[in-house]
């Protein structure tokens, strides 16, 4: 089964049709997506700024991480599920939208950056936990994270505009 035919099947399900045709459900999921954005991107920003050695420089990195990660996770889960809900409501249209595809690429880069941090410089975190500055690799991870989430917001918003012909 191709991607397109899978998405056409998904689009025809009662779940997808229900969200698509409801006046309020789509709006509420979209509102939740925006509030989740504040929680996830807003708190991730402060974590990234700590990696960049811009804020709370004298607070151990592990301290910021352990206290913020539960809330970043909550925000991420809200974003993920509300985002999936929006996608499922109109999967073929999203799939054919070039800006949606660009957003997916941005999200993949953000995920790869998080993985690279986790399997790279984070393994030596205790060595730079309280040093006066953060290592270059941590700064790169922080800067990339801020850039990717900002781009994800921009492309997420631009999906709504029909500037380009649908790809499918």
């Amino acid at each position: 089964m191709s991607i397109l035919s899978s998405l056409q099947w998904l689009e025809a399900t009662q779940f997808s049709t229900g969200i698509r045709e409801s006046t309020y459900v789509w709006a509420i999921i979209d509102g939740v997506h925006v509030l989740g954005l504040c929680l996830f991107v807003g708190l991730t920003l402060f974590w990234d700024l700590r990696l960049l050695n811009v804020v709370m420089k004298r607070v151990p990195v592990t301290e910021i991480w352990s206290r913020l990660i539960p809330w970043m996770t909550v925000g991420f889960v809200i974003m993920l599920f509300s985002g999936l809900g929006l996608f499922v409501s109109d999967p073929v249209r999203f799939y054919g939208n070039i800006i949606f595809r660009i957003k997916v690429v941005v999200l993949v880069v953000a995920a790869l950056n998080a993985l690279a941090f986790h399997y790279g410089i984070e393994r030596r975190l205790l060595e730079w936990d309280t040093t006066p500055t953060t290592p270059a690799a941590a700064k790169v991870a922080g800067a990339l994270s801020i850039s990717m989430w900002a781009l994800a917001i921009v492309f997420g918003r631009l999906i709504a505009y029909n500037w380009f012909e649908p790809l499918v």
Partner: protein
Amino acid sequence: MQSLFQWIEQSALGVSINESLYAFAVIESVHLIALAVIGGAVLIVDLRLLGLGLTRLPVPHVARTAQPWLIGSLIAIIATGFPLFASLAASKYYVNDAFWYKMYFLAAAAIFTFTVRQRVAMKEEAPAVSAFGKLTAVASLVLWSGVGVMGRAIGFI
């Protein structure tokens, strides 16, 4: 008031955004980035007041860390919000209830944050926050959420 809104919509700023295919969308995207920053700067302090998040740091420390980001993002969100408003001031926003509620929430949230919450956060030196401090955080979260929700509702009315 209505004539003021009409004048704004017919100003060079309003007309140029209205006539551009991309201006509204691009400004709106920056507006949303600023929203995320406000969200983080508000939440990190309110969570701390509620005894969550950065609990090992004194509240004034967290508040001082967030302050420049809150002020910066608030300036950015107003600087991007005004041109968006100007482009359709009379024909869309004047007659949109959600827009007015958003402005009331925004005024209340901003005044509350820079007066009551600011004073409360600077006084809460002890690790455990007073009941009044927690109440302040809840009020702040309600007011700022109201701004976001009403902002989103503008497009659905």
